[in-house]
């Protein structure tokens, strides 16, 4: 059983999804979803421990040896991202049980859980697999279910957002297939570890750089790096609360994981960053993303949309760390990948609580909510402080590493920009705080608005407390991130 953990990680949610469809009952489907996501978390934790002790795990599907057969390969980075995805999944599913009842038709509840579990298994599949075509298949499983999940939003604009995401996401995925095809033509292999050996042996040619370009652009579309981000704000703003919390904290993060895999594991750091100068492209793009998206976030009135723009800025931070191409920078990127997922998860879940009571997350309608829903807004405050990077919160640690990484490279304007944009985060979080705590409640149904139910509060606070925990005791995350970074940097040399 223990030997098969890598494949069970994908199979259990994948099988639980049709089970949800068969039972057709929202409540039972919810229980199935919670159970399978918790089992996934437990397995991810086991795998993480195993990787710490035994190093990279390799699992041959059906006993066929790689590179002929499909290989699942889990190294430190993969194990770390597995924990992140399953953790968010395990927290969001119990949250969904209460939240979905309010936001989605009863007849569609079971289908919601099915799509949710498919999305989860797709994301986990991308992380565990060592076969590049498998990445595409799992990517499409997770994306198609994500489009469906977003379209379940109550606002009709959710449909347009899902459609837009579908078009752009499919273009991105198709770009990835083209890149994979070119790699296969040149090497005759689809196994990542095998490709890493075969690619440097090829004589210099034009096809490999073109394949590299197709793959990186495709992945950048998925991770919503600055000029390719237009699908994201609407998709996050109009999706059901549970979906936003889940997708915002996992889908883009897994796309960043794919970027790391492609640049470091397959092509090798020498090719990606020295020969192709990827850092020189990613650095300005991420700087623009951080600055412009923080600025746009300040002027949003829909708080969910504001956080979506802030997500784009945070993705900029992560990519900035990667583009520095140093051990510290990469550690900062991976660390922020984890921390930001926890932070945004808690923020979006707190907003889901607001949505549950108010049916709106407009800044105007949230006035004076601090007294009506103190626990919800408390969680929001913790997440908000963490987003800004206040000391003793998770956000502080990753920004600390990021500034260190930038200074190590002598890029002090970039370090300054990180500080300045943190101040911009203060501005947009402060707008919410001001409206929530320092103004009077002006709704007509003042008595009906009470604290959110426990089923929503508990998961929200789990993530909020994790924000604080990883800020005070950052050794677990920092160690995992730095060993993953060292692993990646050493991969090609």
């Amino acid at each position, binding site marked *: 059983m223990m030997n098969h953990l890598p494949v069970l990680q994908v199979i259990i949610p994948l099988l639980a999804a049709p089970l949800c469809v068969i039972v057709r009952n929202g409540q039972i489907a919810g229980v199935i979803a919670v159970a399978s996501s918790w089992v996934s978390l437990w397995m991810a934790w086991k795998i993480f421990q195993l990787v710490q002790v035994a190093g990279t795990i390799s699992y041959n599907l059906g006993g066929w040896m790689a590179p002929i057969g499909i290989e699942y390969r889990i190294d430190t980075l993969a194990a770390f991202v597995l924990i992140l995805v399953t953790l968010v999944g395990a927290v969001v599913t119990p949250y969904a049980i209460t939240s979905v009842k309010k936001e989605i038709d009863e007849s569609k509840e079971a289908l919601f859980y099915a799509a949710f579990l498919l999305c989860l298994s797709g994301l986990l599949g991308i992380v565990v697999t060592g076969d590049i075509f498998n990445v595409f298949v799992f990517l*499409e499983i997770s994306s*198609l279910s994500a489009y469906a999940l977003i379209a379940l939003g109550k606002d009709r604009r959710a*449909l347009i957002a899902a459609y837009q995401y*579908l*078009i752009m996401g*499919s273009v991105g995925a198709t770009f990835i297939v083209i890149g994979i095809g070119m790699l296969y033509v040149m090497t005759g292999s689809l196994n990542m570890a095998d490709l890493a050996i075969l690619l440097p042996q090829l004589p210099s040619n034009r096809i490999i750089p073109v394949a590299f370009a197709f793959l990186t652009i495709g992945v950048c579309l998925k991770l919503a790096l600055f000029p390719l981000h237009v699908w994201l704000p609407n998709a996050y703003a109009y999706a059901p609360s549970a979906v936003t919390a889940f997708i915002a904290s996992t889908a883009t993060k897994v796309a960043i994981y794919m970027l790391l895999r492609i640049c470091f594991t397959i092509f090798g750091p020498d090719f990606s960053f020295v020969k192709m100068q990827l850092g020189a492209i990613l650095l300005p793009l991420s700087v623009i993303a951080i600055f412009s998206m923080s600025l746009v976030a300040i002027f949003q009135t829909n708080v969910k949309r504001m956080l979506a723009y802030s997500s784009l800025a945070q993705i900029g931070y992560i990519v900035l760390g990667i583009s520095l191409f140093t051990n510290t920078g990469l550690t900062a990127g991976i660390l922020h990948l984890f921390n930001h997922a926890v932070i945004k998860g808690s923020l979006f879940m707190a907003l889901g609580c607001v949505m549950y009571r108010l049916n709106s997350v407009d800044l105007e309608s949230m006035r004076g909510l601090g007294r009506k829903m103190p626990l919800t807004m408390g969680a929001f405050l913790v997440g908000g402080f963490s987003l800004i990077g206040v000391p003793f919160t998770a956000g502080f640690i990753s920004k600390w590493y990021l500034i260190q990484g930038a200074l190590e490279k002598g890029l002090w304007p970039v370090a300054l920009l990180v500080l300045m944009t943190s101040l911009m985060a203060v501005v947009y979080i402060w707008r919410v705080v001001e409206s929530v705590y320092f103004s009077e409640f002006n709704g007509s149904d003042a008595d009906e608005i009470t604290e959110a139910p426990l089923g929503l509060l508990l998961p929200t606070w789990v993530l909020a407390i994790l924000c604080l925990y990883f800020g005070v005791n950052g050794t677990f995350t920092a160690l995992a991130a730095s060993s993953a970074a060292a692993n990646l940097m050493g991969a090609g040399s």
Partner: protein
Amino acid sequence: MNAMGLLNYWFVIVLMMIGFYVLIAQGNLVKKIVGLNIFQTSVFVFYISMGKITGATAPILDSDWSVYSNPLPHVLILTAIVVGVATSALGLSLTVRIHEAYGSVEEDEINEMDE
């Protein structure tokens, strides 16, 4: 390596550009899906072409033949075709829902309604 020998790949590029252009330039949501389909089809042709070996036969063991086409890209693209079908189905069903909600499938009209 003459231009004719690469004819398939020229078609791939032409198809890809047509599809991509339709995808970007069309405001009609159904036509966008058609563009996406053409775009994806070009990739199918790309994969199928690269598995073909001149003078080779289908990969079924036979005593008269010694050279076979590479079946792997064909199998891969079978998967991609299935994914493409699923994508179109989802995209079209979203379009149906959009038409129910807005009464239109023209992008500019829909954007006006949400202003």
